[in-house]
């Protein structure tokens, strides 16, 4: 659109100045080149290949060449008194194209190239920016159009990604509903009936039960939203640790923390859970509770295992349990929070990790 308007302006300028030129015929011939190039650019843009950097480079070269051709058709005095021949407005097309395709920096560079070409024609550079605002305009156009194009591109990319996420989320929801209504129900039923019948069937029932629980976890884990930018849901992260031996209790709403902080808190809790699996005994069950108190978040990890018996602390150091405990405390202190451990023979262990919100 701008290209069309600038062509009309250039045509008007051409009609007005042609008599004043030294060689009017060449002037008209060059004007035909200008129009032909403009049409080519428009077609190239609509076809897509005009949006490639190489085409934009060609455009800058053609514009600079046309500006320099002023030398051929007009006297030095005319060039000095007037704007360069193909008109500054038309030349700005190159600046705009460069800015759209490659952003504000390249756009401004293209503006400089256009200006250098017209400066060469005039034979001097007018430092009076008040009178010769062309350089300022070229730079401003390059910068503004470049930034606008970048913003638009980024917004478009974000929109596309959001649409993709929404689509995949819907698909996961649909799958999870189907799995839930079909496979999970049947597996639950098989495991239940099988256990009642007993014998070998009970073994089958155990297998079906395992699969049922695994599927249920899978279905609920697919409902987790990916981390939203810089925050993450510590509840959803910990829910992935839920299993037959680990129960995870959460509030209904996501517990959002800064993503890096959430990662560290998760690591501390995971350490405690690994400790349970390694040391609390084969029958131990772990319970995780996440509480959002507004200005702080608490994660408790309790197990009903053997605990750390009194007087076994030295052994515990040897087994690496105290090392793990230290690393949990260290991590929480580093985050500006605290870690408390309660344990005793036969009463399991209980960690309470508290993290203030900043």
């Amino acid at each position, binding site marked *: 659109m701008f290209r069309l308007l600038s062509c009309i302006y250039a045509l008007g300028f051409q009609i007005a100045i042609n008599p004043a030129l030294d060689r009017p015929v060449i002037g008209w011939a060059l004007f035909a080149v200008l129009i032909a190039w403009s049409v080519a650019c428009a077609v190239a843009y609509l076809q897509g290949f005009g949006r490639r950097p190489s085409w934009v480079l060609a455009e800058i070269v053609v514009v600079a060449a046309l500006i320099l051709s002023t030398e051929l058709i007009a006297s030095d005095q005319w060039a000095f008194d007037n704007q360069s021949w193909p008109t500054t407005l038309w030349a700005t097309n190159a600046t705009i194209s460069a800015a759209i395709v490659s952003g504000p920096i390249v756009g401004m560079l293209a503006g400089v190239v256009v200006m250098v070409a017209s400066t060469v024609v005039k034979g001097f550079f007018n430092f009076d920016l008040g009178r010769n605002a062309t350089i300022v305009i070229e730079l401003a156009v390059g910068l503004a159009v470049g930034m606008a194009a970048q913003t638009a591109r980024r917004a478009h990319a974000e929109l596309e990604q959001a649409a993709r996420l929404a689509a995949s989320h819907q698909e996961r929801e649909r799958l999870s509903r189907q799995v839930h209504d079909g496979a999970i129900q049947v597996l639950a039923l098989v495991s239940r009936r099988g256990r009642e019948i007993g014998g070998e069937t009970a073994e089958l029932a155990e297998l079906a039960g395992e699969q049922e629980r695994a599927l249920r976890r899978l279905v609920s884990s697919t409902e987790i939203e990916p981390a939203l930018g810089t925050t993450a849901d510590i509840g959803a992260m910990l829910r992935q640790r839920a299993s037959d031996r680990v129960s995870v209790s959460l509030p209904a709403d996501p517990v959002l923390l800064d993503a890096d902080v959430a990662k560290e808190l998760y690591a501390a809790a995971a350490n405690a859970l690994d400790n349970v699996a390694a040391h609390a005994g084969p029958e131990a069950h772990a*319970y995780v509770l996440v509480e959002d108190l*507004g200005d702080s978040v608490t994660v408790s990890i309790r197990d009903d295992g053997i605990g750390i018996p009194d007087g076994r602390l030295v052994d515990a150091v040897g087994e690496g349990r105290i090392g793990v405990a230290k690393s949990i405390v260290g991590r929480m202190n580093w985050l500006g929070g605290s870690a408390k451990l309660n344990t005793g023979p036969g009463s399991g262990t209980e960690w309470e990790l508290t993290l203030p919100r900043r």
Partner: protein
Amino acid sequence: MVVDDHPIWRDAVARDLEDDGFNVVATADGVAAARRRAAVVQPDVVLMDMRLSDGDGAQATGEVLAVSPSSRILVLSASDEREDVLEAVKAGATGYLVKSASKQELGAAVRATAEGRAVFTPGLAGLVLGEYRRIAQVRRTGPPGTSLPSLTERETEILRHVAKGLTAKQIATRLSLSHRTIENHVQATFRKLQVANRVELARYAIEHGLDKE
């Protein structure tokens, strides 16, 4: 009464309950059927699935209690303890059990529900705790003078113990209280949520002019 949209599962549960000495007076596959039949048979206990053919268990819980207020609702769900279970408790359910529970556990839970006791899991306690904290936040930031419920210190302590996997008996020992007192405390937290839910619904209706229709 057994409400579940999966026919094989529904019949299996009904048969188990009959074997266990219960009298299954009706079954239903959805919200509308549950409401119709509950109005007629007035069941003591309703076993409620969360996903139904024409709605969800929370909705069905509310509608059943509207036509049969003396019924007690025990949610039996294959879903993890998520928002929908909390919604059912807010609608008036007094118990929650996962479908992977054994026949014995199911029988015990139905008996407890019939006696007016709460049936709960660590996950449900975590949800209820979270809900009270959300309400506390609303009270702090919302308009003053609202009568939203809060937990007593004792109730908070007990819910936290339940959420961390301690049984009612273990909590009773720790706090030197009776087993029954612990259950009553948990039940009180459920009941207050139900009241809070009614208050919130009523306020929503007034704010949006729905009460004038």
